[in-house]
């Protein structure tokens, strides 16, 4: 690609205004000067499967020596609390309970060397902010979510399906405010923000006429609106961008709500046998909705197990027991999602990523060479099963799965050590590379940036991240 930059280009750019915050109510995105080149892409759609709360690698996709529970056992001896079970890949095992995913690993890659950021005393929402925006909070300008970057750069696949859909997270729980801080398009402007579906089982409500309004009435209401605009007193004021954008957006919303594609949000239309496979709870149904949306043309979908302090993957106690449940929730739906998309040929152009903000370990909080203040009491001798599990926050060896979108099939990337600390010993990969790998798959140039308050703001800090080409087939 040639990016010959000349005087003309320069003049073109200088004439555009560049700023950060809004000016005079103008839409943010129109005021940004961009430096973005489009490239060849390997994927059109991204599905992020978010394991909120910190998923222990040694009890999921990177199992180590198994030590069954027994009263009086030494905590320091416990590396994994589940048996390793062979996957379809030679010599590669996953933790017990993830057999279905293990069977589809010939379609994807497991990364075993993700190293999370170092931000001192650990707070989930800060690490989640970092994972989703690639920037460490706080920031002096509002950083966009990766889904917003993608929505801004690529737009919708299908004009009636919002480009960035976030399934499964409520913001009324603990740390809800901290979650809101990164579920935002930031300086890109609210147009690129997430379309929130906190509960997929009632997802349809978000995209259908108001409760109790018949389809006929909905049509009539819209007609009334248009008639009144056309015959109203608006003519005397002429046109302006506020008015035009208002009319356009209302029409877009009407089209979405009337469109057959909106039925993608309606899970009751799914055949029973297929629905049952996905119906392991909110997360499973979120996967089903993600699949249905992908079929109708979605750009970026995030499905989360939902973050709530001390719930789901955030195991400060009973780690082993609770993971049995968590695995039941995710194993079937994720494997099915991969298989379904493959069956319809969509997996090639859809990148699925499973990730978590960091991992867990029974002993180490933070990184072995950069330990931070511990948050969980862990007795040296375990008497109670509630102390049996990975309860401390571990940042130096986390697992990520990737399927489709040109990613290698049946590949293992990176390695953690077999003994504690089970930290990354080969090919460490950080968030900048993960983001750039996703952008690369989508054909978004790595130096994509906008001038914010005259400062360049890149997709990854200072534009320094690089895609990991080794992950691509």
């Amino acid at each position, binding site marked *: 690609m040639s990016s010959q930059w000349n005087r003309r280009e320069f*003049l073109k750019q200088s004439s555009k205004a560049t700023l950060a915050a809004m000016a005079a*109510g103008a839409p943010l995105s129109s005021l940004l000067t961009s430096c973005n080149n489009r490239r060849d892409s390997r994927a059109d759609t991204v599905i992020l499967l978010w394991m909120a709360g910190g998923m222990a690698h040694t009890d999921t996709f990177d199992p180590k020596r198994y030590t069954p529970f027994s009263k009086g056992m030494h905590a320091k001896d416990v590396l994994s609390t589940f048996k390793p079970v062979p996957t379809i890949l030679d010599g590669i095992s996953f933790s017990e309970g993830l057999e279905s995913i293990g069977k589809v690993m010939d379609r994807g890659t497991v990364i075993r060397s993700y190293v999370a950021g170092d931000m*001192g005393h650990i707070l989930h929402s800060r690490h989640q902010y970092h994972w989703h925006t690639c920037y460490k909070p*706080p920031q002096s300008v509002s950083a966009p979510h990766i889904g917003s970057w993608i929505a801004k750069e690529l737009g919708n696949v299908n004009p009636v399906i919002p480009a960035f859909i976030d399934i499964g997270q409520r913001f009324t729980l603990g740390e809800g405010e901290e979650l809101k801080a990164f579920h935002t398009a930031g300086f890109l402007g609210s*147009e690129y923000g997430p379309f929130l579906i906190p509960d997929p089982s009632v997802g349809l409500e978000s995209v259908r006429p108001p409760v109790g309004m018949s389809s006929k009435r909905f049509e009539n209401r819209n007609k009334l609106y248009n008639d009144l605009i056309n015959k109203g007193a608006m003519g005397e004021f002429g046109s302006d961008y506020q008015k035009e954008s208002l009319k356009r957006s209302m029409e877009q*919303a009407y089209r979405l709500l009337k469109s057959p594609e909106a039925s993608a949000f309606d899970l009751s239309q799914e055949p029973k046998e297929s629905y049952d496979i996905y119906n392991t709870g909110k997360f499973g149904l979120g996967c089903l909705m993600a699949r249905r949306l992908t079929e109708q043309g979605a750009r970026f979908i995030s499905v989360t197990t939902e973050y709530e302090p001390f719930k789901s993957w955030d195991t400060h106690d009973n780690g082993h027991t609770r993971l049995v449940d968590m695995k039941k929730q995710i194993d079937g739906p994720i494997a099915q999602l991969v298989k379904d998309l493959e069956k319809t040929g969509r997996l090639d152009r859809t990148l699925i990523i499973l990730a978590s903000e960091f991992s867990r370990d029974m002993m180490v909080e933070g990184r072995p060479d950069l330990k931070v203040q511990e948050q969980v009491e862990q007795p040296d001798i375990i008497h109670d099963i509630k102390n049996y599990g990975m309860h401390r926050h571990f940042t130096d060896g986390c697992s990520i799965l990737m399927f489709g979108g040109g990613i290698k099939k049946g590949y293992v990337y990176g390695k953690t050590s077999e003994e504690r600390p089970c930290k990354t010993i080969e090919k460490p990969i950080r968030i900048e590379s993960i983001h750039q790998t996703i952008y690369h798959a989508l054909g978004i140039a790595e130096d994509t940036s906008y001038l914010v308050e005259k400062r360049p703001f890149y997709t990854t800090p200072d534009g320094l991240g690089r895609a990991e080409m080794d992950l691509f087939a």
Partner: protein
Amino acid sequence: MRFNSKNNFSLNHKLIVLLIIFLSIILLHLIYNEFAPAGSLLSMAPENFWFLRFVGRLHPLVVHFPVALLLFTALFELITIKHYHSPLRPGIQLLLLGGIITSLIAAIFGILLSGNAEYGDNLLLHELFGISTAILGVILWFLHQRILEKNEVRYIKIYRCGLFIAAIGILLAGHYGATLTHGEDYLSNTLPWTENYEPVEKMELDIKSNLSEGGILSKAEEKELNIKVRAIFAHNCYKCHGEEKVKGELRLDGKDFVFKGGENGKVIVPGNPDKSELYRRITLASNHEDVMPSKGKKLSEYDVSVIEFWIKKGAPWPEGSKNEEVFKVAALAPRNPELPPASGIYSNPVDRWTNQYFTRNKITWPEPVEDRIFLRRIFLDIIGLLPTKQEIDEFGNDKRPDKRSLWIKKLLDREDDYAIHWLTFWNDALRNDYTGTGYITNGRFAITDWLYQSIKTNKSYDQFVRELVNPNEKSKGFIEGIKWRGVVNSSQRTEMQAAQNVSQVFLGLNLKCASCHNSFISDWKLEDAYAFANIFADTTLEINRCDKPTGKYTDARMLWKELGSIDNGAKVSIKRKQLAENLVKPQNGRIYRTIVNRIWAQVMGRGFIEPLDMMDNDPWSQDMLDWMAFNFQKNNSNIKDLIYLITTSKTYQLPSVGFKDPNQIISQEYKFTGRLRRRMSAEEFADAGSALFGSIFPDSMVRYRPESQVGNNQQPGSFPRASLVVNNSFLTALGRPNRETVSTSRESQANLLQALELTNGERFNAMLKSGAENWKLKYKSGDLIIKEIYKQALGREVRSEEYKIAHKILGDNLKNDTIQDLFWAIMLLPEFQIIY
């Protein structure tokens, strides 16, 4: 006519002399450029003598003569190729002579010019062809004379070949000369099949700018280009070539350093990227030993091309002396320009200034807006509410000539409504909210009560700033910032947040860059930011550059020393007190300009200066802004008085202006012609709905309850105002920010996510539903409902066309559903949502 031989001889004689002079000039030229020892007489370049410079610049004028003359000589020679001694011969001789003489002059002038500037490879080729052609011309003249005088026919072929070569030579010289002034792709970019083809529209821009600037970047453009390059250096090179580390003895963090080069000599050859070591290094293959940046992170193609372009353009770095500022910094001192005289109805000071501005810009005053538009404006601008039915009637029936001013006064006196409305503005700016990161962990403190009381009592702005900067327990939230658990980037420590936010909100100044490294968008240095942040620190902060400790410290200091000093060793409370007093000094024109600009933007839609946080930009009227800021300060920094002054002006009552392209609004060419149209804020829209149809928010969502709204004090018909409720999906969709960062204006453009919330959002539709029920009970007939909703929502009578449409949908059998749908349609009309 024939030259006689005697004349010819003397001519030849002169020519030989001329040739010798000419060759010696070439020799001198070479000596100048290549072998001249510094300081010697020979190294005195021609640019040191004005006459030579002047003559040099005539080169582009003179060059056209030899081109035309030599080409015509060649052409006539072609025409007469069969008959050498044709009747045209004397003419050819004359043309040849003219061509040779002018080519010699052009060559000499050109050599003088080339001493004046750096051009690069194309200059060498241009000189080569130009000078050779001139020499060849002299030789041709001798040949031609010999053929004529001695009739040596054998020379004819040689002469003719030579002439055609000279013609080609002068074409090539001309071509390379043109690329120097017009650029290499000047011709080729008109050709659709070439790589650098430019479609017509782009060409126009280029041609236009070429005409106006002679193909040379303007000072402003040079500056901007330079800033881009410095930004690339800062982000990619400073780590190893800056203050901290000086690898290869090269620093890139200053003009002198960049042009001085490193251990291997100069790294930039202005005008010539290919000869510039820096350019060579950044374009090497990533596995090359010499590639830069060395740590495996290649510069993007874009960045490389920016640097290439910069070097090509002569590596401009507009920075005269050390004291000269690269970046425009607005004057700090207040100014009180003389108020223009009153003229007719334009006696309000704002109008006097506008009148002067309009006269100068040849703008005529349009008629002021009619009552209904005016009434809606002042209600929404001052108290954030729609006028009620009674108020609309009352205003309509008010026959007092000064009723507009009287009503403005009345609204400003509605203390609580006023405070509730302006609370939104200040909450955004001071990032104060009821929920948000940090509040539950005591990492952040709300200032709502203090803020509300301050607005309600119309606290003077200087006192307002004092109490925020040197806070009490109730106002400390702004300075304390947001403290996250764990380790944060040193540019986001709370002291630095305070420095950034104080400078952004009160001074319209961006200190964010400088809090990490020396800014390259302004002259603020890292040390300045730390000096300012130290005012908020218990101890002296260690300076961190890009989050790396430097081991250096600086004193606590104001950003402008003119504003006074800070006692470095004092306790933080003393330092903050000093800061507060320094900030609000009358000498600090900037703080008063900033607030006047913000208030003006709130009621007029656009500031004198945009963006509001970049107060170093130029205002559309410096005098008007300065006068208003000066007199605002003199008037005890009274914000309500300022709003009164603006809103009672004829200027405020000008018809609103709408833009199709929002970029025009912030364009530097913006001309003020009237208030800018704005869309209702989330809060205004919600309150309008609540007032018409009943509360959109339940009382349980209220997070701050002013005394007047508690218990029995609550007025009948009042509802929870949106600015007092906890943020929620409805307000978020309509643009209420999450207040994690300072936010001083809001988007006015609608989008899909917002439209979805308005189309099927539960809260909004529930409000309309209960509104329909209430209205049906109250007004009973469809006829009345239609008339009333147009009056109350839009402040006007329903038109017959509209009435017909509405009546058709309501039908004779009045139903809640259809009433609800009518209300929905009305609230979504642009006419309802936009304040005209």
